[in-house]
């Protein structure tokens, strides 16, 4: 069901603490879609998720699921599934008992519970692991069990707090793809917290980018990437070089892969500025370069290995900087 968050406020510590962890946050997480709460650490994204789950009490604002206002409803009656960052599996119970927990506290019939557990273990591709203990599973397997456990009670909303945070890079990518497919099958309205922009771009239908307790921008991943509302959004999603006018005013941005570098004059050379190559970082199939522009601003550039080899650029070189695709910030997107 659609989750609507309106003017949510959360202050930690003293009542008059002016630095609210969540400061007037509003957004809509569409029904049946994956919505990502993205932001750097300290942006308040986990706090928002915990308030939707009922694990934190907001100081103001409201949360509705469908047309039901759940702001003051206790956790137990909210009907949300929550998957914790460190999984929080019950270590003294078997995997099957973990998955069955939500049903057994509701005193569901034994047969029904057993069938449901078998079904869910199959769904997360861990049939046959029911008798094991969480300590005997790998990180990725625990994550999937936590997911199965949260889904057992048929929640109307699934909340995932940094679901891949504790996994190594390879498993993280695998599990991300798996989760996407999993969602295609279940279509449970999902809210997911992450600080990883790649994860957000790949997994979600809708992104809510948070910064310092406020929504910086919300929309489809495509929207945020192509039409960032502020330098923060542009640099957080995909990285960007912010361009200034002569009086220091921010006016546009350019993505690192939209910059061309030339060592020798090209037809449009008379309009180009010269930059100095300060650093080269080779990362597999591409190369990252860090330049200093004549006005002292840094400029980061990314190019394929082929292009880099073709140009024959070295550290310390003065190069012509051609900005391919300079874009203004979409002010009207700013909130």
């Amino acid at each position, binding site marked *: 069901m659609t989750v609507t968050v309106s003017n949510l406020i959360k202050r930690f510590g003293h009542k008059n603490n002016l630095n609210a962890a969540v400061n007037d946050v509003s957004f809509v997480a569409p029904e049946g879609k994956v919505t990502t709460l993205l932001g750097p650490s300290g942006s308040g994204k986990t706090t928002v998720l915990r308030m939707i*789950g*009922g*694990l934190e009490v907001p100081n103001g604002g409201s949360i509705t699921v469908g047309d039901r206002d759940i702001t003051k409803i206790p*956790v*137990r009656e*909210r009907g*949300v*599934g*929550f998957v*914790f960052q*460190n999984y*929080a*599996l*019950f*270590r*003294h*119970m078997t995997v099957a008992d973990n998955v069955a*927990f*939500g049903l057994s*506290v*509701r005193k569901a019939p034994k047969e029904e519970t057993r069938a449901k557990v078998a079904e869910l273990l199959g769904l997360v591709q861990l049939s046959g692991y029911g008798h094991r*203990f969480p*300590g*005997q599973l790998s990180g990725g397997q625990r994550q999937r069990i936590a997911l199965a*456990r*949260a889904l*057992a*009670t048929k929640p109307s909303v699934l909340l995932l707090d940094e679901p891949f945070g504790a996994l190594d890079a390879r498993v993280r990518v695998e599990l991300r793809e798996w989760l996407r497919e999993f969602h295609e099958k279940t279509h449970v309205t999902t809210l997911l917290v992450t600080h990883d922009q790649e994860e957000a771009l790949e997994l979600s239908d809708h992104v809510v980018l948070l910064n310092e307790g406020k929504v910086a921008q919300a929309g489809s991943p495509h929207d945020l990437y192509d039409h960032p509302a502020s330098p923060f959004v542009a640099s957080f999603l995909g990285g960007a070089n912010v361009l200034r006018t002569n009086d220091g005013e921010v006016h546009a941005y350019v993505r690192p892969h939209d910059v061309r570098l030339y060592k020798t004059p090209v037809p449009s050379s008379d309009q180009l500025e010269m930059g100095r190559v300060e650093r080269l970082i080779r990362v597999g199939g591409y190369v990252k370069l860090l330049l200093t522009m004549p006005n002292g601003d840094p400029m980061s550039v990314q190019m394929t290995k082929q292009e880099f080899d073709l140009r024959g650029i070295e550290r310390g070189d003065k190069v012509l900087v051609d900005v391919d695709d300079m874009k203004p910030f979409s002010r009207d997107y700013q909130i």
Partner: protein
Amino acid sequence: MSGIVGHLGGPAQGPRGEATNEAPWVRFLLIAVALAFLGLVLVLPLAVVFGSAFAKGLGPFFEALSDSYTFSAIKLTLLVAAVAVPTNLVFGLGAAWLLAKYKFWGRSVLITLIDLPFSVSPVISGLIFVLLFGAHGWFGPALAAQDIKVIFAVPGIVLATCFITFPIVAREVLAVMEAQGSDEEEAALTLGASGWQILTRITLPNIKWGVLYGVILCNARAMGEFGAVSVVSGHIRGETNTMPLHVEILYNEYNFVGAFAVSSLLALLALFTLLLKKGLELLSQRAPKSEPLPTPVETIVAETPVTQVITS
């Protein structure tokens, strides 16, 4: 008097790398010094206790133990432990739960207060109760009017023992709870569990090893407590004499076989406690169901007067 021994629990660390090893002669020297010290301070006294107890053979040993005063001292000690341990189990669990799960104003003060019985000399702990409940104490006259005797009677001994042993269960359980955090409780909550279901199905099973561990140590200390009990007991033979107090009386009467015979029982309790403690550590590490016990803050071993049998 109290034997507070540092203890390294938890899973064993692997051997040190070769680079940090000392030369062989240094290692041998250090080991020899350590062994000699252990022998002198730990093994020798223990041997003396058992040696003296059996100095005149088995007959006098069992004769000393079957003395009616000795028997009533053993009975009283068991009674005191039977009251003090469950009491401290309940209150220790409550205190640990409160401190681990909630952040509130004055929390750190409360944590420090729990340690108070450890930091005060047991004799002073005893005196506190005399000042409160003695004939000239705050509540003494009122209690006397009701014909209730606390000091120089069993209630005083139980109170003093509860006070002395209070921190043990609370500290053990608090350490386990803090290491585990509240995540599993929160998860249970989101899955629809009630407060009682969370307590009985999540919290208690998770801390059971820590609780058992605390109970064993608490029991050892409750049976071995001397200082505080000595102050409030009045040393009435057959009535308010616990085992440690009885040892002192027998020793002062030059009844060495008797004194050491009772001491040997306390020493056996200490050894049994250590064995049980070790067993629990192994069990909790082997069980796939739970995490190993975190390193306990302190380990308190039964104390016995006169002979000071403190083992580790």
